[in-house]
């Protein structure tokens, strides 16, 4: 007889299987991580329905056009580059200002008092698990409320960097071979401290904003997010 846990897993995996067979996107999240093997096997089997699928013509056209846009550093006007850089810089400065404005988050939800606290909606600490679960220098993606972060252990402390590129709002991916955060939208990368790795054809970008992070007395990592 299946226990409750197996029953829940079977429901979760069936939901994914149903979506896959209906041709829908994978709707999965960290709560599904314990069933990742089964979910990935389901995706592989669903992907075997078409032995050698070709890119649909409409997608091929969209891709071609995205590639043309993606070669922006070569074709982008200086003005556009400056405006984009400025916008990113303004975003980063605003983020930094917000970070300074953020009150020292309490272990309990922030009160409804006046002053600064009123301007910051629902700041709270999000539990990211025990410090012992983090490997030295290896970024782990974590969602702190509405903000995506990469948490990087540095000895007994942890650094939290925004997971979004400071150029365009694209989610960065950690590349272990290059030890860098790579932007899927453009040829842009950031090092493990959040600073841009400059390339000859690139243009300067602000570093990745940081979030407040703390390690509690019981050894839990907590990140402050909205």
């Amino acid at each position, binding site marked *: 007889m299946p226990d409750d846990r197996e029953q829940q897993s079977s429901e979760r995996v069936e939901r994914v299987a149903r979506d896959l067979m209906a041709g829908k996107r994978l709707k999965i999240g960290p709560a599904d991580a314990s069933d990742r093997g089964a979910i990935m096997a389901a995706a592989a*089997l669903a992907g075997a329905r078409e032995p050698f*699928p070709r890119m649909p013509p409409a997608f091929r056209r969209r891709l071609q056009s995205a*590639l043309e846009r993606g070669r922006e550093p070569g074709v982008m006007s200086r003005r556009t580059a400056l405006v984009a850089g400025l916008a990113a810089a303004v975003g980063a400065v605003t983020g930094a200002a917000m970070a300074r404005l953020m009150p020292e988050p309490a272990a309990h939800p922030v009160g409804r008092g006046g002053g600064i606290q009123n301007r910051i909606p629902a700041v709270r600490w999000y539990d990211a698990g025990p410090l012992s679960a983090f490997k030295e220098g290896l970024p782990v993606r974590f969602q702190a409320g509405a903000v995506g972060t990469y948490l990087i252990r540095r000895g007994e402390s942890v650094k939290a960097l925004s997971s979004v590129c400071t150029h365009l709002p694209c989610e960065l991916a950690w590349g272990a071979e290059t030890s860098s955060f790579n932007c899927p939208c453009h040829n842009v990368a950031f090092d493990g401290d959040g600073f841009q790795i400059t390339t000859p054809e690139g243009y300067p970008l602000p570093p990745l904003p940081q979030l407040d992070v703390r390690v509690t007395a019981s050894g839990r990592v907590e990140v402050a997010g909205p």
Partner: protein
Amino acid sequence: MIEFPAADVPAAQIALEELDLIYAFIYARVGNRADAEDLTQQVALKAIPRLRAEAAAASIRAYLFATARSVLAGFWAHRFGLPEEELREDVAPPAQHPPPGPRAESGAAATRATRILEALPANYRRVLELRFLRGYSLKEVAAETGSTVGGIKVMQLRALRAAAKVETDA
């Protein structure tokens, strides 16, 4: 079928031709067109601007596959909230890629599925074949096998876990 491009075709053009292969590779791992399109686009945008104009077709393919593996690992890691390193080997063993040519890759997903299914006990294999390869609903699988929907749901989970193990052990 993709043909090998002529040697003097610029790297970006060769890469564009190769993207069909990358799309098939990704589709075989995410199982749906929408995610496969998004991820193929990420591979293209990430890899193509970095190619050297004079790069050979084989090295372009190797670079595209390396990028595809990294993008796929990022996709699963991001969704599951896990470190990429933990998923990299699950995504695609590096020894198998890049394949020697498009013809060898063609049908690879079906071959892989067959290999997985053949390694499973008969009852697990039957459930997964009906559900995923023939597109039966849970209810239809239950009717076909004389079981209950609840029973099949749990058996599907166990069969998929066993399938995942076959992949890991391969």
